[in-house]
């Protein structure tokens, strides 16, 4: 919003994936640098002090001490990396949902998708503790898809003010699914319930290199889909009638994009828990910082989301040492007022 609209708007309308607006690309680069910085910072912060030089040495050559090696390589580095990647996935999901639903308030955790994934993962943790860890993302995807289906079926698209209605239905579905999760926690064994609860708060305390590999593999797999997404997003953003008249096959594109959004959110949730509001905030920040087409906007949102979750985790770890506040709580504390702000500043009805 801060940039003059007139000059950018023309670039926006004509730009295909090759002719990217310069401001957006520069911003993307800056965000990349900032993410690396946040990762380095998060490697040094914690109850065991590691100086910045020691941390760099550990990463590049080898650790000055065995303790530093363990702390940095086993705990802090995977945690920081997971935060960046998972935050990016959540933000990507939010950006796609906001464009497809043409709803500035959409976010995987607000419309119930994250809660659907949570139900499935908590069921897995509590009822089938013997199942391998790799099944979690699969379960999360199934749960998220089911939740998306419920919302689609129960929201009434015929009448007006669909924007808020969609979110409201999501709020209700999320409340229901949270109750299911809660019942699951009382049903199960206490130890398993506690581990499920830490996960539910959106804590990154338990992540390991397995999660890093899983997420990286996933990102590589969906990258072509993300690049593909920019075209249909551009058409769908205009609304159903215009999209169809532009020659988009509206139903198919819409379905594929929602599937992609659900997939991104579900995989992120399966590793870091149902962290809320990242998918809401990041796309708006991206739009405020640079005017771009939907393709670059998607990647900008993802970069901002990664940075956001990394910072949230950093704050949660640093503020009340030695107590760790889960990153999900930090994002909720930031995100809820932001949601209220969006609600107030919404244009039209």
């Amino acid at each position, binding site marked *: 919003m801060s940039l003059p609209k007139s000059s950018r708007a023309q670039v926006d309308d004509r730009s295909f994936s090759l002719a990217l607006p310069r401001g957006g690309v520069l911003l993307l680069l800056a965000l990349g640098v900032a993410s690396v910085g946040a990762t380095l910072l998060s490697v040094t912060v914690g109850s065991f002090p590691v100086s910045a030089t020691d941390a760099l040495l550990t990463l590049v050559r080898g650790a000055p001490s065995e303790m530093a090696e363990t702390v940095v390589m086993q705990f802090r580095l995977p945690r920081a990396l997971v935060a960046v990647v998972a935050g990016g996935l959540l933000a990507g999901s939010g950006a796609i949902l906001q464009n497809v639903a043409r709803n500035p*308030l959409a976010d995987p955790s607000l419309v119930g998708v994250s809660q659907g994934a949570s139900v499935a993962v908590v069921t897995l943790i509590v009822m089938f503790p013997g199942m391998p860890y790799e099944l979690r993302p699969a379960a999360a995807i199934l749960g998220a898809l089911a939740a998306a289906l419920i919302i689609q079926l*129960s*929201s*009434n698209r015929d009448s007006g*003010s669909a924007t*808020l*209605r969609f*979110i*409201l*239905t999501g*709020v*209700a*579905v999320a*409340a*229901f699914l*949270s*109750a*299911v999760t*809660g*019942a699951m926690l*009382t*049903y199960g064994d206490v130890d398993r319930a506690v581990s499920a609860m830490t996960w539910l*708060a959106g804590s990154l305390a338990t992540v390991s290199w397995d999660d890093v590999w899983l997420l990286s593999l996933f990102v590589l797999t969906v990258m072509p889909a993300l690049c593909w997404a920019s075209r249909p997003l551009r058409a769908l953003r205009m609304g159903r009638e215009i999209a169809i008249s532009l020659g988009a096959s509206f139903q198919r594109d819409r379905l594929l994009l929602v599937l992609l959004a659900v997939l991104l959110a579900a995989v992120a949730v399966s590793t870091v828990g149902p962290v*809320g*509001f990242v998918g809401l905030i990041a796309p708006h920040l991206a739009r405020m910082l640079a005017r771009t087409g939907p393709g670059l906007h998607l990647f900008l949102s993802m970069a901002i989301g990664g940075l956001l979750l990394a910072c949230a985790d950093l704050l949660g770890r640093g503020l*009340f040492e030695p*107590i*760790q*506040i*889960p990153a*999900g*709580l*930090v994002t*909720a*504390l930031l*995100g*809820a*007022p932001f*949601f*209220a702000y969006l*609600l*107030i500043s*919404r*244009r*039209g*009805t």
Partner: protein
Amino acid sequence: MQTMADAREHPGHWSTGIAGLICLCVLAVAFLWHISVGAKEIPFAVIVEALFTYNRDQFDHIVVHEIRLPRALMAVFVGAGLAVAGALMQGVTRNPLADPGLLGLMAGATFAVVVASLFSVPDFSMIPLIAAAGALIAAVFVWLVASAVRGGATPMSMVLAGAAMSAFLGALTTALLLIDQQSFEQLRVWMTGTLTVRPRGIALWSYGWLCVGLLIALAIARQVTTLAMGDETATGLGVNIRRLRIAVLSAVVLLTAASVSLVGPMGFVGLVTPHFVRLIVGFDYRWVIPGSALAGAVFLLLTDIVARTVLAPVEISTGLVTAFIGAPVLVWLVKTRL
């Protein structure tokens, strides 16, 4: 004087009297059923005996008197209080989705109670009042945000502002509990909405405030009906809207705060019950409010029975059961009433 006039205005007062009697019978049946359900099988005759001729030497009597009766009473009072709070809010804001939980009041009260226990407030009489302060602040904030939304405080903007408020305060509450492990242990179960025994002082004061709130609600019921028809109608009929709004707000805040102090955040009771009651008695709040009190009590008794039996011997939180029932009702309301 006024009651006589009311009786004359309402042609069907005989039939409503009978309906009231039936409702009381239903409440009595639900109450006895609630007491008879539990881990230990107790014959019905023994329960009646324990209620009317209590014998301290018999174990079954002690179970009924010390464990089951307090829990049933709690369900009755909290159910009635929350349902009446919901009915008042729905009437005054003309919002079919108004509910102390959905509009953030419960999150405010919960947060306040957690803060109070964090600073270990020793005086139990203060707990409901602190909760009331939290609920009031949350309510005012939600109202301000919802009014600032373009289009004004519509049902949707109110619920969404309430959702944001609940998310914010919920995160803050959890963070506080994580910082203070001891409070976390104490309040973990209470946080999910359960009808378990609370310290005696808190319980007594909460019951007192619940009664005050219910009495205020009954006293203003007549005027709420006029307000539900619109501000102009109410003013035309000589109602002081400003004073009435303050009375409603104080009743709602007291009822919510006392309920939360007793059983924790118990969502959806205030949403579901008044809709059900209005289906039967119509839109006259002189009947909606006592009706909601009765129906809310029965509703919470029944949900608590479900919570204790469905996964027996494990008990699930009653708040979860109310959410199971309430959330689909919310979806339905969003679909049909907005």
